[in-house]
């Protein structure tokens, strides 16, 4: 990027954060930087690496399933594959996802601050992340054999398997800690560092969702932390917390695990919803419809999200009363999610929409998220759940919500804020081509799984009855197409770093604070801390 140095900073005297001369030089100026923008990029690079790893394992799994019987890997390797795919994608990609990358980069800018409240802790959280990921990867190569429990680590198998569980579990513990520190940092930042005049109800929606997410991060994550410590105690000291042979209750493990892991779903989806709530008003050039409802529904989702973990355990053995309560509460959480969808669609109503790439991603998000949400209601109803539990239907549902929700939200945010982060425009033609190919592959891959699940094909098996063959061929081909689409999208973004045209400060006509400063932003974000006098989306 040296050649571009001159062109990027012509409009502004201050050098951008990319060229700011700090205490350290070279690589150290990145991995020791406490600048929230550089930390955001550190997260971006590490996250994309993990995403590529997870996606590749995912495609290998689909290749195994392209025909019945052993195709490319045996049963044990397949078990290791889905375990690693799950751990990486859940704990190292979608949970940190938008908060760690775009939250770090844009939260301080959007609320008019120079940095987060605790910049050093922010950097520390990245080191926790990297160490956690390293431990998870190490677990693949040390010990008797890789972990093979699935990302849920269900007891009692997780402490009886010969798989090398301890490093994996400890790695996830560290990833959790990284998530707690990020959430804590954001909460304090939002409480204490908003620019003068930015009252709560003048705060943009992306920071609002980060706020709701922050509470879930700090209040839910410790539960899985302590559960994994207990798991370690179980494996090392044979304590018997969850071992029925010693009086423990494996069901209690499931309760504790989902007490975190269900709210974690909202850690994943809320910031994505926040990004979408930024993108849609910008490309409609209209105020977000029902701003207060979007805010309230974010808080409501985070709150109700705590009380519905039991729907992961409908067939595990619970009292009838609990089944009924958890099912009812599950249906309740659909209401605030639906409110958001209505708000987004109403924002588009009668607007002169600018069909740019970020907007297309946002519309894609709303579409696939609705499929994911509705299939969630199918699974949330008790009778349907008995039939569909542990089938490919569940697989399809949570890929539509997690990958469709967080993944689409991530790429929408990536294409929306790319000019601001890099100071370059990407090639819109290739970006849209990539999106279309990705979307076709995505729908072929996952919608087939709904059918397979209803027909009774279970998840987590390397083999299946030949009657499922044809849909599986479609699904696997979809995976390959989607993988190609992803490659086009990412290569286009990388290539545009050098070849892209110089980005103006506000390429899309956005009204939030990040568009008032140069692209890329100077190291201190603002020459002068702005004074906020109006709401975030005032276009009229």
């Amino acid at each position: 990027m040296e050649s571009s140095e001159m062109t990027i900073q012509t409009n502004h005297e201050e050098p951008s954060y990319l060229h700011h001369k700090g205490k350290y030089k070279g690589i150290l100026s990145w991995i020791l930087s406490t600048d929230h923008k550089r930390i955001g990029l550190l997260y971006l690079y590490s996250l994309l690496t993990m995403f590529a790893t997870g996606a590749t394992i995912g495609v290998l799994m689909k290749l195994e399933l392209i025909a019945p019987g052993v195709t490319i890997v045996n049963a044990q390797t397949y078990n290791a594959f889905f375990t690693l795919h799950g751990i990486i994608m859940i704990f190292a990609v979608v949970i940190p996802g938008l908060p760690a990358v775009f939250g770090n980069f844009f939260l301080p800018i959007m609320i008019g601050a120079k940095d987060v409240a605790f910049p050093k802790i922010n950097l520390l959280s990245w080191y926790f992340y990297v160490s956690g990921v390293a431990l998870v990867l190490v677990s693949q190569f040390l010990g008797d054999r890789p972990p093979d429990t699935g990302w849920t680590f269900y007891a009692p198998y997780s402490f009886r398997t010969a798989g090398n569980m301890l490093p994996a579990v400890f790695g996830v513990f560290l990833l959790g800690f990284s998530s707690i520190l990020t959430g804590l940092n954001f909460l304090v930042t939002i409480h204490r560092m908003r620019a003068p005049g930015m009252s709560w109800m003048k705060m943009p929606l992306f920071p609002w969702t980060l706020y709701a997410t922050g509470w879930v991060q700090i209040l839910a994550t410790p539960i899985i932390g302590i559960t994994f410590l207990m798991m370690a105690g179980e494996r090392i000291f044979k304590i018997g917390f969850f071992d029925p042979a010693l009086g423990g209750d494996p069901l209690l493990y499931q309760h504790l695990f989902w007490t975190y892991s269900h709210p974690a779903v909202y850690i994943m989806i809320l910031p994505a919803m926040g990004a979408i709530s930024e993108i849609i008003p910008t490309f409609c050039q209209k105020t977000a419809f029902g701003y207060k409802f979007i805010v309230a529904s974010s808080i409501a989702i985070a709150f109700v999200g705590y009380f519905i973990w039991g729907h992961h355990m409908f067939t595990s053995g619970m009292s009838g009363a609990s089944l009924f309560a958890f099912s009812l509460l599950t249906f309740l959480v659909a209401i605030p999610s639906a409110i958001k969808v209505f708000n987004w669609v109403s924002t588009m109503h009668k607007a002169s929409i600018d069909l740019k790439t970020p907007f297309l991603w946002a519309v894609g998000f709303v579409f696939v998220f609705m499929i994911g949400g509705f299939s969630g209601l199918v699974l949330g109803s008790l009778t349907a759940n008995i039939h569909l539990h542990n089938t490919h239907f569940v697989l399809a549902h949570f890929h539509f919500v997690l990958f469709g929700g967080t993944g689409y939200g991530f790429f929408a945010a990536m294409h929306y804020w790319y000019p601001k982060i890099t100071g370059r425009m990407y090639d819109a033609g290739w970006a849209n081509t990539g999106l279309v190919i990705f979307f076709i592959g995505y729908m072929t891959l996952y919608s087939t799984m709904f059918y397979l699940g209803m027909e009774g094909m279970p998840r987590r098996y390397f083999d299946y009855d030949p009657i499922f063959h044809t849909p599986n061929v479609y699904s696997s081909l979809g995976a390959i197409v989607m993988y190609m689409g992803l490659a086009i999208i990412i290569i286009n973004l990388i290539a545009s770093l050098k070849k892209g045209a110089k980005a103006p400060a506000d390429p899309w006509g956005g009204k939030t604070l990040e568009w008032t400063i140069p692209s890329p932003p100077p190291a201190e974000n603002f020459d002068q801390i702005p004074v906020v006098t109006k709401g975030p989306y005032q276009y009229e």
Partner: protein
Amino acid sequence: MNNTQEIEQEALTSKTGMWLFLFTELLLFGGLFIVYSVYRYQNSEAFHLAANELSVFIGTFNTIILLISSSTIAMSITAIQKKNKRLALLLLGATFLLGFIFLVNKYFEWGHHIKEHIYPGSYDLSLRGHGDILFYGLYYFMTGVHALHIIVGLGFIGIVTVRISKDKIHSGKFVLLENCGLYWHLVDLIWIFLFPLFYLIT
């Protein structure tokens, strides 16, 4: 904004962060308390009998030690506010010593049980019922995690002591000491719950 205002603002920010961190800690122990209550409910008879085997004397002694140490650290904050650096250091030293005595007691208490071959995975414990296995499993684990927090707290007190002696913490800027106090109170508070659960409810 002048300098004092800035320091005050920073102190407020820092304390908000500490409080949120304490929530996290509460939830961490909350998970353990849930597990404890479920197993106590399922094995109330065995928990009742096993609790009789713990030494109420050491438990009470340690409780008193921690309560006193909480008050000494609180007094050291007042001392620093009154610009009495010597007294503040003295009180922090006392807190450190009390925390250390707590750990020594814990060492002898655990040592006693281990000498009697009562520890998770031991043959003697496995001969007893499920309730006993769970009780002692929880006892070692919960007091162990708590002891770990005491050790971290002692490290924290050590850092604060050094910074006071180097005049980096003084009457105008003492939020780190306050945060250290908050953390130490939390460790104390959790013990206040552990004590009756393991020693008193028999």
